């Protein structure tokens, strides 16, 4: 099947659906690196014109990666909900954009059609949407999940507290965790990226977070972001595992490079569910994704990186996750060259994930070799807040000293709450109020003015160790 469009005196032909999608994608360095990007700005617009006229049903007839060779394709095809799709069946991709932005697409209707939308449909329509469209449409989509806190309610924002340390030093991690809690961060989870993969060291981290959460009855969940096989082993050995983390991708080949497949994720989910550690809900999977990963593993099958990314969301939604986030600027300038590309990708990923029914967060981030800085991250954070992002990262001073990149800080979380009037997850909000860390309106209190410093026993214990 070929696709074509005429712009002025030129007629453009696209040999496949994959080529059409890739050439319709906004310019980014990773697609140029893969050799799939449009050769000119006019060709890109021709691809968008052809894409706009394409019926959504075309994506049901043409799997971009063969059903027989890719389990992610099989998952997408086998779980497609034809009943939910009935509302959209007659639409073209361009008509789908119009519909998404119309009043007919209310929050309730969008939630009802999510299982009828495939990742490729989501990717396709996003390519016709401006940043403003991606914000407006996503803002209507509320995906609410729960474990010990409830995340994704309208008007609320959660923060993953990310207290990483270069050598997994327990006291260093605890110091950063307490710092984050004092800044009102941690309602999405307290999640550590370990430097070491040694089971004994990982176990120490799970035990430490479990003890802290239990001691102060913190309505949140812990996560140690080791490989999923390490987490399954830990559960078998009795470790107090709340959330199961894994990086996932949109092709079987990429997942293989991560050392995972769908069966392994299912095994991990069942193992964690057996611990029955949730109180207000049972969403316990935590997935991370990011554009460009498929190409870097040479497992992209000629697809553009944004379409690959949307396919990763099909993997995520099969496991009713508590949290999904796209680590948008981590991968480097060869995939997303500058702030313009990072900002666009962050909005695309958030929109596509939400459209498919996922509790999307975004790691608003960059590396020092990308053309981006704190000002750009402020912009992306703010537009994502406007779009209703479920959660973002909270890293001390925005400087992750283990992973060597810049993410959002505890202060950034405060800033977004203040700018947009966003409250904490409700259970966490009550806890912070009980500790007098925030007032009735959710504003952080001046800790120096409190009669007793919250969490002071833990802080003093750490501090006493220093004096000795």
């Amino acid at each position, binding site marked *: 099947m070929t696709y074509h469009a005429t712009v002025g005196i030129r007629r453009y032909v696209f040999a496949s659906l994959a080529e059409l999608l890739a050439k319709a994608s906004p310019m980014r360095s990773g697609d140029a690196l893969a050799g799939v990007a449009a050769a000119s700005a006019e060709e890109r617009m021709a691809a968008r014109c052809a894409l706009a006229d394409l019926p959504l049903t075309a994506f049901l007839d043409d799997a971009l990666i063969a059903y027989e060779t890719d389990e992610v394709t099989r998952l997408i095809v086998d779980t497609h909900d034809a009943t939910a799709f009935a509302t959209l069946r007659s639409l073209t991709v361009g008509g789908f954009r119009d519909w998404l932005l119309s009043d007919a697409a209310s929050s309730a209707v969008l939630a009802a059609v999510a299982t009828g939308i495939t990742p490729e449909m989501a990717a396709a329509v996003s390519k016709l949407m401006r940043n403003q469209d991606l914000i407006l449409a996503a803002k209507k989509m509320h995906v609410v999940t729960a474990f010990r806190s409830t995340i994704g309610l309208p008007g609320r924002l959660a923060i993953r507290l990310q207290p990483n340390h270069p*050598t997994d030093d327990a006291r260093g991690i605890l110091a950063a965790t307490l*710092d984050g809690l004092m800044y009102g961060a941690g309602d999405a989870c307290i999640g550590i990226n370990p430097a070491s993969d040694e089971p004994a060291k990982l176990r120490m981290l799970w035990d430490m977070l479990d003890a802290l959460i239990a001691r102060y009855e913190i309505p949140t969940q812990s996560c140690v972001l080791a490989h999923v096989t390490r987490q399954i082993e830990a559960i078998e050995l009795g470790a107090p595992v709340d959330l199961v983390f894994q990086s996932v991708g949109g092709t079987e080949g990429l997942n293989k490079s991560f050392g995972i497949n769908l069966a392994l994720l299912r095994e991990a989910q069942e193992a964690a569910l057996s611990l029955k550690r949730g109180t207000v809900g049972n969403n316990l999977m935590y997935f991370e994704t990011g554009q460009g990963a498929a190409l870097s593993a040479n497992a992209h099958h000629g697809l553009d990186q944004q379409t690959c990314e949307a396919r990763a969301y099909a993997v995520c939604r099969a496991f009713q996750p508590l949290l999904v986030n796209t680590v948008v600027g981590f991968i480097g300038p060869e995939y997303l060259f500058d702030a313009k590309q990072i900002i666009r990708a962050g909005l695309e990923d958030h929109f596509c994930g939400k459209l498919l029914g996922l509790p999307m967060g975004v790691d608003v981030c960059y590396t*020092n070799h990308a053309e981006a800085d704190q000002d750009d991250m402020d912009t992306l954070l703010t537009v994502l807040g406007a779009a209703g992002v479920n959660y973002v990262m909270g890293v001390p001073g925005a400087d992750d000293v283990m992973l060597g990149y810049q993410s959002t800080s505890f202060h950034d979380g405060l800033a977004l709450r203040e700018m947009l009037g966003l409250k904490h997850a409700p259970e966490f909000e009550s806890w912070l109020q009980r500790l007098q860390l925030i007032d009735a309106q959710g504003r952080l209190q001046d800790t*120096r003015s409190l009669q007793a410093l919250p969490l002071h026993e833990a802080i003093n214990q750490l501090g006493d160790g220093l004096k000795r």
Partner: protein
Amino acid sequence: MSELPKPVASDALAPADPPNDPWTELRSLTPARIALGRSGASLPTREVLAFGIAHAQARDAVHAALDVDALASALQPLGLPIIRTQSAAETRSAYLARPDWGRRLSQDARSALEALARSDGPDVLLVIADGLSAVAPQRHASALISALLPQLDGLRIGPLVIATQARVALADGIAESLGAKLVVCLIGERPGLSSPDSLGAYITYAPKVGTTDEARICISNIRPEGCAIGDAAALIAASLHAALAVRRSGVALREPSKALDGDASTAAALSDQKP
């Protein structure tokens, strides 16, 4: 926010430097930026400036051009011939966007190197590459090599090759052109906020175009505040002798770098930070 402003606390009337948080003593437990204090929801001015300086240094390191003449002068006293070469990435911008070009010699560069090849290639070739931080080789390469050479007695050492717009794998093609048995690529690593001048050493046995990263030994974070020059030279020498003895490098030969396992960027350097 709709609530009325609260009465102003007395100490907030003076626009003094906002105080640190009451748990400031915990800062000695971690290099992370904790207990920063705040100005409303934002960082105090001092912290905005401190972060800005760290980022500026990292950015300057990424974009600084290697001063090849100065580096060659610094290497001159070591008494080895010096060769200059460049990858197929012609500009810094192209280098950052196209890692595949940074791993490949231009046709001219390859021909020039092949013209210098002798029938019996060296045992060890040292390639000094700008990578993602030219500041790192500029500051540390000559000291590191002069500490390393005395530990390579009995080995035939090739010319010192200075390579620009280079990724790690560029050294494979250079070594292949010159017929070297083993190559050590000393290359500037992706700058972190507090480490703009970190040098990495990648040791590859039987290097050739297409060699993959599992076949390398990596010693990372070489700089005075990280893995000190003397320690790094000893580690490189030990790894290199071991690789020559068993005729392979890579994952199976990771032992010599274990000493660095406690270090910040060793694990990361093996995956994400590799230039």
